[in-house]
């Protein structure tokens, strides 16, 4: 039996400690030892469907859990049945005989929903392949990361959900294999997974970013690119105000030439101190993609510049000494970051996966963000920093870039996006300062969206306006997957109901 009950009814708290499921009954979905992946997920999906039936009979709502990393509490529901998925984590290579004619199987992998992004990355690299983007950390589950549109700062890429080519989703009424109308896997393979085929572009685009509201995702077909190397450059530099204009117009080459290498960068990230962002040095990170070669000198994730967690350690000090915030933040930036390889240091290289780290819980974090049209960047960035600092925001402000991402509910919905993150130690003052930023953007009439996973205080009315026609299509797709309102309610929670996703 792939599902086991864990202990007796009790509380479960998410990773950031932002929410607790009271009176939760915990279950774990575990991988089995079936020889073929399709048999394994057929068995698991059957068990999940039975489990959903049992939950409905017990009049309990359900909540699937990945790594529990989302601080927006979309992973929290009380008096419910929780399904932990991290031990459902096998990965399987896909053969050319399993896909439809014309589909290239060489980059595809079948992934059980609970496999961590790190695990998927490792397994792809073993086969000479790689993810083309992911978040700053890689300790999320693949299904959980895709569920919220997790992204990094690869300029020409969208979100992690863009890797998903097909999914298996379990609802109380059935086990569905969802893929785009053009199809990916062949009918014999899909039959082997015990699923009913649903080939539809809208349902697929909804399921690529389901926010945990469309059923339980048990498996995903993940696409990849040939493995590549990245060369990181990381430094602390005072950034000229004019450089924001280059970034806004997509002239990343000029930005890179001014602060790192005179080459087209693939990844650009800028972390500023919102207290005087152009007077104090910013932490810059660039990645330059290069063809794979086996004999590159190996470096540790630290040498490759992974993580900037030292920032969270100053949390209490920042809250306790508001007058020293600017200086303390700058001190933390220096402590946490200056060690990366600068332009004149010997070059270090790593694969995509080697440059990322699974996060270690050092302190309570606050995560929030706004995604804007990159063209608005020069106009609003300073304004955002000013409002945030004036109201006591105690985190650094990070600027990342990405292209339009797939999925009807992808927050990165502008052709070119600038994502402004507020990541650091958690405090009420910081949350209030972020709320002022949102108010100010609204007052200025600037279009923006917010991250599903972060503490962004979204509500149903706002989701409907932000996503417009795409939200209507997402709900129509949801109603095809879950036509019975009772089944939709089974996946409800205070937060998801409030966002208008489950009711």
């Amino acid at each position, binding site marked *: 039996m792939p599902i086991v009950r864990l202990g007796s009814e009790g509380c479960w708290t998410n990773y950031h400690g932002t929410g607790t499921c009271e009176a939760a009954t915990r279950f774990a979905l575990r991988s089995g030892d079936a020889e073929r992946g399709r048999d394994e997920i057929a068995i698991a999906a059957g068990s999940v469907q039975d489990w959903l039936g049992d939950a409905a009979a017990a009049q309990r709502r359900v909540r699937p859990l990945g790594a529990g990393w989302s601080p927006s509490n979309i992973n929290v529901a009380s008096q419910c049945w929780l399904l932990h998925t991290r031990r459902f984590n096998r990965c399987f290579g896909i053969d050319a005989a399993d896909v439809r004619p014309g589909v290239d199987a060489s980059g595809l992998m079948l992934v059980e929903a609970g496999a961590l992004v790190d695990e998927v990355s*490792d397994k792809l690299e073993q086969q000479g392949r790689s993810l083309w983007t992911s978040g700053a950390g890689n*300790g999320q589950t693949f299904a959980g990361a895709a569920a919220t549109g997790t992204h990094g700062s690869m300029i020409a890429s969208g979100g992690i959900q863009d890797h998903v080519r097909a999914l298996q989703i379990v609802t109380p009424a059935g086990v569905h294999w969802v893929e785009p109308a053009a199809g990916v896997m062949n009918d014999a393979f899909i039959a082997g997974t015990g699923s009913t085929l649903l080939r539809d572009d809208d349902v697929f685009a909804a399921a690529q970013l389901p926010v945990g509201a469309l059923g339980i995702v048990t498996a995903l077909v993940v696409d990849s690119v040939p493995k590549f190397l990245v060369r990181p450059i990381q430094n602390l530099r005072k950034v000229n105000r004019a450089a924001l204009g280059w970034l806004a117009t997509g002239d990343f080459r000029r930005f890179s030439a001014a602060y790192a290498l005179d080459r087209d960068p693939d990844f650009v990230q800028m972390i500023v101190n919102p207290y005087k962002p152009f007077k104090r040095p910013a932490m810059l990170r660039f990645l330059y993609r290069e063809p794979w070669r086996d004999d590159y000198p190996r470096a540790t994730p630290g040498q490759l510049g992974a993580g900037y967690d030292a920032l969270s350690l100053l949390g209490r000090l920042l809250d306790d000494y508001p007058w020293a915030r600017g200086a303390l933040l700058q001190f933390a930036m220096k402590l946490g970051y200056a060690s990366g390889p600068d332009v004149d240091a010997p070059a270090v290289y790593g694969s995509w996966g080697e440059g990322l780290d699974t996060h270690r819980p050092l302190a309570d974090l606050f995560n929030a963000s706004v995604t804007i049209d990159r063209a608005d960047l020069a106009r609003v960035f300073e304004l955002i920093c000013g409002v945030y600092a004036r109201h006591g925001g105690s985190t650094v402000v990070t600027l990342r870039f990405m292209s339009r991402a797939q999925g009807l509910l992808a927050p990165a919905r502008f052709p070119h996006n600038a994502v402004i993150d507020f990541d650091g130690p958690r405090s009420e003052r910081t949350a209030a300062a972020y709320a002022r930023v949102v108010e100010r953007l609204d007052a200025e009439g600037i279009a923006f969206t917010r991250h599903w996973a972060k503490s962004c205080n979204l509500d149903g009315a706002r989701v409907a306006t932000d996503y417009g026609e795409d939200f209507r299509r997402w709900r129509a797709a949801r109603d095809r997957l879950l036509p019975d309102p009772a089944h939709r309610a089974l996946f409800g929670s205070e937060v998801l109901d409030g966002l208008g996703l489950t009711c």
Partner: protein
Amino acid sequence: MMWVGWALAALLFLVLFGQYLAGQADIFVSIANPRPLDEESMVVVLKGWGFAAHAAQPFVTPESDHGLCDVRVFATRRQTLVSLASFGFLRPVTVAWRAHAGVFPLGDA
């Protein structure tokens, strides 16, 4: 002579304050490529300056058949204060760990 006393008192205070801050530091040990499950924790009280140790609950971790990914040892502010106030006789610390989810070889779909 008076100032020597004050200087000594100030020094002792700084020594104690340093212990108070350092006592709350995290000691974190992790394996190289972790695949962690949820964090579990328990409080262990060292008694009599370390002659005896007592855990508030037995070391039970529901999903540890693949071993542990990482272990953290730290004291909260309150635990550090208890330790200082009892002259170190009681030394409560929190031990937190995350079990490993397991790694399987790549299979065939």
